[in-house]
């Protein structure tokens, strides 16, 4: 294990990114989530359920029981009280984040087939899920009630994300079709424009309606040799100001079944769906983008994993090619930023959770 060190006052320098901690788990990891209160990192693995990793003590607590499958969707409420796990068994589970021995608060059979992603609204009142039943669902965090089921996707829904101010929920499917939904679940209709108001706009009278963005075509392909579809938003995140949506996946696929394709992140203008820029590696690397996040200093960090190995990439100023990249020890499968955005956690295929600091190492 590599010892961590305090970096509260460190200057962010992506070019100095280095490993500050690595911790092995029993099985290959598939996902990670950094809890907002900076106490834990939750991980999913090739196992049933999730694990809670305490950042100070390094204690691992297995959170198992309700799930009968892998879990790759994890998130917590902003106050850190409740953590959610969404499994490939279609189950959505509410957990007490910091209970000594976490027992499920609530278990809901949320989707038919896989839950591929979940997201918690910025106010912590809603949790959204999506999956292979083509549905996007919004749940009440407090009561567990299903508030709204959004249908309309014709392909497996790969990702969901709330906008930073919480007014919109965005979903993206296998073929890169993006839908924008009202985050409160109250859908008026499916026509444009984005916002319809027939009265003065107040919190009570603003009437939000859903809309579709153009397909991000570069992130989807039907492989005619293997007769299979490949694509989808393997990672997705809004920009800090909510004006752009980063959708990551794989592009230029020439052999879907061997993983021959380059990882890519399309930066989509939320207002009109135009792809402003497509981030990718300067030197083409086979793989899939499994994580994307914008730093509060403006640059974007992306995680790649695949036959080209594991990589962290850094892009800025709408420039397609990276200004820095870091080769990782193993394929990355999930990425999460620390609440203070000084560190990044990566769930690796070699069973390790690694934490990377975005600054220079101590002398």
């Amino acid at each position: 294990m590599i010892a961590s060190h305090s970096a509260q006052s460190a200057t962010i320098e992506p070019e100095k990114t280095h490993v500050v901690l690595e911790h092995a788990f029993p099985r290959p990891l598939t996902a990670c989530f950094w809890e907002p209160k900076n106490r834990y990192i939750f991980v999913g693995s090739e196992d049933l359920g999730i694990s809670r990793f305490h950042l100070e003590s390094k204690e691992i607590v297995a959170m198992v029981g309700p799930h009968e499958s892998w879990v790759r969707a994890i998130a917590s409420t902003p106050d850190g009280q409740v953590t959610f796990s969404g499994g490939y068994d279609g189950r959505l589970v509410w957990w007490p984040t910091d209970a000594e021995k976490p027992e499920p608060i609530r278990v809901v059979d949320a989707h038919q087939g896989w839950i591929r992603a979940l997201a918690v609204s910025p106010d912590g009142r809603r949790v959204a899920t999506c999956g292979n039943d083509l549905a996007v669902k919004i749940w009440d965090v407090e009561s567990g009630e299903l508030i709204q089921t959004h249908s309309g996707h014709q392909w497996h829904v790969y990702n969901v994300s709330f906008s930073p101010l919480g007014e919109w929920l965005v979903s993206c499917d296998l073929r890169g079709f993006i839908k924008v939904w009202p985050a409160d679940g109250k859908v008026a209709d499916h026509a444009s424009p984005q916002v319809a108001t027939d009265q003065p706009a107040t919190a009570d009278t603003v009437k939000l309606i859903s809309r579709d963005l153009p397909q991000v075509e570069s992130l989807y392909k039907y492989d005619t040799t293997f007769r299979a579809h490949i694509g989808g938003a393997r990672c997705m995140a809004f920009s800090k100001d909510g004006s752009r949506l980063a959708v990551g996946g794989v592009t230029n696929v020439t052999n879907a079944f061997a993983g021959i394709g380059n990882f890519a992140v399309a930066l989509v203008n939320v207002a009109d769906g135009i792809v402003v820029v497509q981030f990718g590696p300067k030197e083409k690397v086979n793989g899939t983008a499994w994580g994307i996040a914008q730093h509060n200093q403006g640059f974007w960090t992306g995680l790649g994993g695949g036959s080209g190995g594991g990589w962290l990439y850094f892009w800025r100023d709408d420039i397609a090619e990276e200004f820095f990249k870091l080769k990782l020890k193993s394929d990355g499968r999930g990425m999460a930023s620390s609440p203070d955005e000084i560190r990044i956690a990566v769930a690796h295929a070699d069973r390790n959770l690694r934490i990377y600091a975005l600054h220079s190492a101590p002398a």
Partner: protein
Amino acid sequence: MKCQYACGSTEHVTNRRRFVSGIASSAAGLGLGGLLTGNPAIAEQLKGKQKRILNVFLHGGVSQLESWDPKPGTDTGGPFRAIPTSVPGVHISELLPYTAKQMHHLAIVRSLDTKNNDHARGEVEMTTGHKQIPGTDYPHLGAIAAKMLTPQRFPLPGHILIRGAGSGSGKAAYLGPKYASVVMNDGKPPQFTERPASLSVESDLRRNQLRARFNDRFAGRRRTADTDAYTFSYDQAQDLLSQRQVFELERESEVDRERYGKSEFGQHCLMARRLLEHGVPFVQVNHSNYDTHHENFDFHIEQLGEFDKPFAMLVEDLNQRGLLEDTLICVMSEFGRTPQINARYGRDHWGKSWSVVLGGCGIQRGAVIGSTSDNGTEVVDRVVDHGHIVHTILQAVGIDSTGEFNIAGRKYPVADPAKGSIGELLA
């Protein structure tokens, strides 16, 4: 090549009969169009008489862990659950919910160790039952079935391969080219089975009568194996022309076409049912592709999602129509996939411990033969391989797999003499 008639093999006796009868049927021409139809009476006639084989080949190597031998919760198990089937105590992957309801008609062999991780070799060995040896060709199961199960004066090919676009076919090797597969590319009727619009029925008939007379005269003086094969090809083409409607899926009801689904594989399964109902001795349906080195789980959702319902529908229909008693079903691949999951969520080639499904034609319903270790990395009970599978298939349809073919005086074993059938599967 001069024909050695003195050998007196069945091969040539049959060939001579076909040669003569072929002319007769050619003379009858298109008038024989109704000889075989899809009506239940014909199915009733077939029932209990002629054996048939349906081979579903899942190209690329289907994962046994995502299909017939799930290991949920283990380090190799992957994300899918196991579900109960219509056979108490037998579970298969949740990716096969429709097939699970038909498992009381089928049997699983969970203990294949074929010691091979190569696609081409795996396809050859699984479909011939012989270990591949450079420079030696063995006949495909379909060729053996066509030779041994095709009734006399049968107007359709005995060995039909239905596949999506792509290459490859079932070789007949020393059995002769007439037993090689007739291919339905993209499920379309075999090539050149439609009379050109510019050729009238009468002109076609006169043309063939003239050709038959010339052939007869020539055969009377200088008959060779080559000319026989040539004549056979013409006769078969004539027969195919007269039976064109057998290959026309649109003759199936819209209800059935909906039931089987609009996917390519669904329509191919319906075509397989149609061909089997018309008595074709061997039909292979290929489904592509399962070679999932990358994102095995996503792709198995997609591919088995296509496979499951139509296949289950086909099993159910064959049973309901009384054809399952005489139709051997097999679901095979080149090999299975690694229990170990790679860094890209893929599974690689694995011949060491994987599964094949058999059913019908006296195969023990609901049986499970052999087993693998807790995480599927090795066979722990009743190791078998391609040789045993092919012996079992052939014996189930009444072919003595321990016998020999006599081809021009040279003897070839029907199946690998070093192997035998899985006796406990045969009723």
